């Protein structure tokens, strides 16, 4: 699509795009290029020079037990976060869509978590499940369950998943509700007249018509789980116990800033970059929608 | 006030020629209508005069001055757009005043000019409204007002009535004509509607595929079309075309003759036989649609009093030879 009307001039438009181009070049393309460049080197032990290793960093990573474990952790984590938050959101959206009055009130109440930063969400859930003072921990103790996510890997994973999913429910709810409300009422009524009960209608009419929204949310939520949950992980578990919650982004951070292993961290960045690109292309190809945030 | 002159004006988009060289002299105060089917290049022609489209070759002169490379605002023109192009966030007053503000006209004079235009167009009660709060006809008037306040040398109209309903269109057509008479501003008006062209124009340009087939006063064009295209495009219902061979002695060479519906009579014995398809009785007149032996459609327009033949009936058609227009194989008038 192109505009028919244009203004004349060359210097003015160049001046207009200059700020964005400058900022993008300095803070985006240069660092992204650096990441790719650094991924091909390892620094010597004194940090004085860089040694070319070609794809050595990648080979090393892919053979590294911890990195492969982190891949698996990321996969499990993002699938769980996506399923839990989308499931709860869909459930609430279907209920809100059934209401004639008052769905606006529920919507207002349910969008709160969108405003809560992942890191803050992490602190809130950490507080509830804190091993010493957590309310939920205490009540679980009454029931005879000894909650300790600091030591138990499964419980740690469960906690970061719930905290991450919680913060994402608002977003998914809004999109599901919009998707449901876009389904023509007459289609549902026709199915009802055909004798389909609520559950049958949902399965045969609503769910298929909702599938573009669902697919879109699937991709967006996976990207969210990959990157934006850093705050949750960092506040609740710091990747532990025994790296049980070290997702890929967390590992880029801990290897690059804590471990100071620049080559490996850069190679990890490049791999992440490839994963996001694939996800974005998939999304563009299949639903022609755009992701961010 | 000004004259407009087009000299061998051409326009190409890349390799595609859309205007093939137009010559025209528009007199001061004249109302010229460019008419043609969609895609014939009429809007492009107008936009070249406006300066919204570059000129590929040839010249546009306004008042004897070549303006090919001048910006629209320097050409001393004003334009009324098909969808009015009112600024949605500005009041009616601000819409009309915007060009004057840019030209740094003193405020009291702006207020004065807008007030005059608003009075002329009966827009006074609406000056503080936003365009979305106006009806289609009112928006049309605001678009006119925006053109008038600038006191341009030339008005350009790009299908200004095509977004209005039929009744309003007739009314606004009259208003535009009266306004133009009153102000005496040279006007160039684009439309695809031949009725609009006939009623508004001092002279019209009938365009066909980038070529000006004919330039002339409406009635001259109607009575004396220069090409088969013009004969078919101007007039409703359109001219009947009959293969010259079919009626015998048509000069040969594969030409056709054209004869307007009001010039054809149904008789017992005529120059051509045809079968009645159906008849439309419109009250004052009746249109009878027939099919000739070769399958060609023929329409006859007759007064209400005359008898209407039955469907399927075979009739003979007759006409005065003086009314016949002969066209050669290339569609040119012989």
């Amino acid at each position: 699509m192109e505009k028919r009307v244009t203004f004349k001039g060359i210097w003015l438009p160049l001046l207009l795009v200059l700020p964005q181009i400058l900022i993008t070049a300095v803070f985006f393309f240069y660092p992204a290029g650096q990441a790719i460049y650094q991924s091909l080197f390892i620094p010597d032990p004194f940090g004085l020079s860089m040694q070319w290793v070609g794809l050595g960093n990648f080979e090393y990573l892919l053979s590294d037990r911890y990195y492969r474990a982190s891949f698996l952790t990321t996969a499990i984590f993002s699938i769980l976060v996506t399923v839990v938050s989308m499931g709860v959101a869909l459930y609430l959206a279907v209920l809100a869509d059934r209401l004639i009055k008052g769905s606006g009130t529920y919507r207002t109440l349910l969008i709160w978590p969108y405003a809560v930063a992942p890191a803050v969400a992490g602190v809130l859930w950490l507080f509830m499940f804190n091993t010493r003072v957590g309310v939920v921990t205490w009540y679980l103790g009454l029931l005879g369950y000894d909650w300790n996510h600091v030591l138990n890997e499964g419980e740690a994973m469960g906690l970061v998943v719930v905290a991450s999913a919680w913060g994402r429910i608002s977003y998914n709810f809004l999109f599901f509700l919009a998707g449901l409300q876009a389904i023509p009422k007459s289609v549902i009524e026709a199915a009802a007249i055909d004798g389909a009960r609520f559950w049958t209608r949902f399965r045969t009419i609503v769910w298929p018509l909702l599938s573009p929204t669902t697919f879109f949310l699937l991709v967006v939520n996976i990207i969210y789980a990959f990157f934006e949950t850093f705050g949750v992980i960092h506040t609740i578990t710091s990747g532990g116990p025994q790296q049980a919650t070290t997702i890929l982004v967390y590992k880029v951070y801990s290897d690059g800033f804590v471990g100071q292993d620049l080559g490996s961290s850069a190679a990890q960045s490049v791999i992440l970059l490839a994963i996001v690109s694939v996800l974005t292309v998939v999304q563009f190809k299949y639903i022609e929608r755009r992701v961010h945030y | 006030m000004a004259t407009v002159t087009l000299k061998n004006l051409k326009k190409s988009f890349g390799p595609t020629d859309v205007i093939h060289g137009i010559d025209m002299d528009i007199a001061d105060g004249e109302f010229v209508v460019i008419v043609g089917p969609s895609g014939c290049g009429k809007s492009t022609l107008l936009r070249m005069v406006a300066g919204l489209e570059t000129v590929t070759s040839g010249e546009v002169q306004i008042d004897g001055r070549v303006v090919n490379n001048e910006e629209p605002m320097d050409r001393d023109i004003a334009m009324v757009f098909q969808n009015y192009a009112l600024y949605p966030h500005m009041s009616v007053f601000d819409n009309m005043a915007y060009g004057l503000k840019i030209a740094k006209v003193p405020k009291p004079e702006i207020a004065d000019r807008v007030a005059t235009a608003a009075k002329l167009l009966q827009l006074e009660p609406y000056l503080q409204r936003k365009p979305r709060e106006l009806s289609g006809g009112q928006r049309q008037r605001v678009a006119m007002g925006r053109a008038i306040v600038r006191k341009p040398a030339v008005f350009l109209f790009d299908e200004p009535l095509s977004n209005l309903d039929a009744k309003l269109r007739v009314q606004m057509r009259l208003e535009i004509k009266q306004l133009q008479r009153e102000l005496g501003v040279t006007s160039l008006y684009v439309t695809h509607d031949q009725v609009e062209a006939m009623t508004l124009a001092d002279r019209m340009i009938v365009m066909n595929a980038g070529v000006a087939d004919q330039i002339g006063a409406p009635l001259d064009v109607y009575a004396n079309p220069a090409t088969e295209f013009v004969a078919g495009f101007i007039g409703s219902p359109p001219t009947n075309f009959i293969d010259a061979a079919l009626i015998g002695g048509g000069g040969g060479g594969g030409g056709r003759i054209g004869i307007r519906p009001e010039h054809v009579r149904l008789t017992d014995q005529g120059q051509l036989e045809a079968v009645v398809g159906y008849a439309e009785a419109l009250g004052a007149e009746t249109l009878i649609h027939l099919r000739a032996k070769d399958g060609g459609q023929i329409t006859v327009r007759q007064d209400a009093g005359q008898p209407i033949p039955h469907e399927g009936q075979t009739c003979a058609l007759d006409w005065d030879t003086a009314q016949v227009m002969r066209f050669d194989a290339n569609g040119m008038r012989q």
Partner: protein
Amino acid sequence: MSERNGMVEKRGGGLWLTHLGLIIGVAFIFFPIWLAFVASTVDQQEIVRPPMPLLPGDQLIENYTKALTSGVNAPVAAMLLNSLIMAMGIAIGKIAISLLSAFAIVYFRFPGRKLFFWLIFLTLMLPVEVRIVPTFEVIANFGMLNSYSGLILPLIASATATFLFRQFFMTVPDELAEAARVDGAKPMRFFIDILLPMSRTNIAALFVILFIYGWNQYLWPLLITTDPSMNTIVMGIKQMFPSGDDIADWPVIMATSILAMVPPVIVVVGMQKLFIRGLVESEK
């Protein structure tokens, strides 16, 4: 749009079950926030002896005053200011540069236009987390650690807003620009007088989204603000936890968490319509 009816069957208890289901959902959403609020109104003793109460106590003013004026490492009031500057800087900065470049890309034909378009397009794909280490080095080399420009600039380098405005500008009728030209408006005049006022709602909607995006940043401020006085509130909370076995000052931490939520919640709930519009449109 016709009035939407809810259920097809309108019989009996279904409505109450629907409400019940939603209320359970709302309770699940609000419980963590409620608990944080309660914790911010009681004293440390009530928390370290579980179970803590589920209704607010009387220490609200003390806890919030302590958090705002002294905090743990740095006064939270200063962190709030830092967060506000960062969020506003990101929102305003991104909107400003995006409006300008979208205007240039849509309304001009200039050499390199396609190239710029694709360069900007590429940035859509990559969150700052992916290029975090080299970006950190750039900021360090510029001496922008512990500075507002260091907090803001790298997060502006993304093209979502540019695309949104480009899409909107494409829907503005061509005739408006032509009418402005006939009226004698030069490009920038058209931009300021016509295009900007017409973009008002889009700008506002995007502002809401970007403000929250900026306010909720965590990793980036964590890396580049080593000086506690430059901490933003969202990352500052984690810094309040003691290392080792000391007990955290939960009432102050929870008061800080509530303070960290209040501005974005006000923005989201108060500008709900714009927010939802911005959200749905920026993802389209």
